[in-house]
């Protein structure tokens, strides 16, 4: 391993704890979780009908969040995904930048590795900075986190700040026990819509 491959083994932030803290008191925050580890993290923090965890469609999490945010302009939408999933859909950051949805936040848990496939390094272990790409795409606010100090302010910004928002969080590369959401896509779709249209409208 070279230095870049090793550095994320020592990042202080742990993904499960980060997601638990960001989703604390979430109320009816609508959450799209990118496939792989972030879908398990979101489920570990508490399965909810307002979660749409992905088992496929790699590269599509931000675009799903955009379609949802445009359809529900009075609700807050959070896309939580990993660096590998985000890298596959970089163009979607441009599309969000052009649309300027005020109610959309994108948070990338960046462990610099493809965690589900043998911990190969991603581009963020090298030269790529996702928050800078989001900034250059026209996101209203972009910031990066490496330490626990700003997690609470990030949680509040996701709920309140004018979007589109992008937060890149450097998290430790680690393999954790699987906490799996339901995997039937139709079930996930139906329970999300049922919860949304029963509670709101």
């Amino acid at each position, binding site marked *: 391993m070279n230095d870049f491959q090793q550095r994320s083994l020592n990042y202080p932030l742990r993904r499960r704890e980060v997601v638990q803290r960001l989703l604390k008191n979430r109320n009816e925050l609508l959450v799209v979780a990118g496939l792989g580890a972030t879908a398990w993290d979101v489920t570990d923090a508490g399965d909810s009908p307002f979660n749409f965890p992905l088992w496929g469609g790699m590269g599509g999490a931000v675009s799903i969040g955009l379609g949802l945010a*445009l359809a529900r302009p009075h609700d807050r939408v959070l896309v939580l995904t990993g660096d590998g999933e985000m890298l596959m859909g970089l163009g*979607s950051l441009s599309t969000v930048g052009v649309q300027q949805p005020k109610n959309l936040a994108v948070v990338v848990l960046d462990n610099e590795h493809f965690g589900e496939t043998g911990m190969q390094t991603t581009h963020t272990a090298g030269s790529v900075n996702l928050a800078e790409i989001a900034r250059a795409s026209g996101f209203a606010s972009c910031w990066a986190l490496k330490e626990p100090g700003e997690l609470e302010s990030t949680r509040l910004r996701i709920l309140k700040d004018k979007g589109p928002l992008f937060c890149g969080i450097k998290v430790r590369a680690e393999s954790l026990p699987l906490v799996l959401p339901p995997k039937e896509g139709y079930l996930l779709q139906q329970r999300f819509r049922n919860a949304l249209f029963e509670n709101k409208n």
Partner: protein
Amino acid sequence: MELEGSVHKNTQFWAEAIHASLKFHGIRQVSYVPDAGHSRLIDLCRNDEELTTVVLTTEEEGVAMATGAWLGGEKSVLLMQSSGIGNCINMFSMIRECKIPFFTVITMRGEKDEFNPWQRPLGQNAEKHLELCGFSVRRIEKSEETRTIMDHVAEQVFETSSMGAVLISQQMIGIKSFAHE
């Protein structure tokens, strides 16, 4: 812009019929990767305040957006040309598994008289690719069939939560050729 002037003239009638059908079926989000053949329809949608139009960097974004739109209770359509089908295939797995009603209107390239051979592999096999992915496919050959076919496919898609594609034959669009320019 009169760069595609001859295309505009030919597409005026069917583009208006498609726009009217989208409105009739309550579609709210229109995402697209442009095609010269779709330019009149894209203009109609962009000038319609009831529609949210979203220009994409690649067609697969539109498939994912349709998923998000439906989760939030809105109907959508993806406008693209036949080459875009190839960019969508993995995302089509998601809408099939999640049973998202998905509607796409595709202008055809790579049919007879196509001057660009690179358009042929997807153009010639568009229906087969779409059917393998789970779509029902209808093709419009004549302008006057447009509204009937659009309404039929839209109704099927949204009433049965299925995947439907309308293909607009290249003969309705006019053949693009650099030789005339």
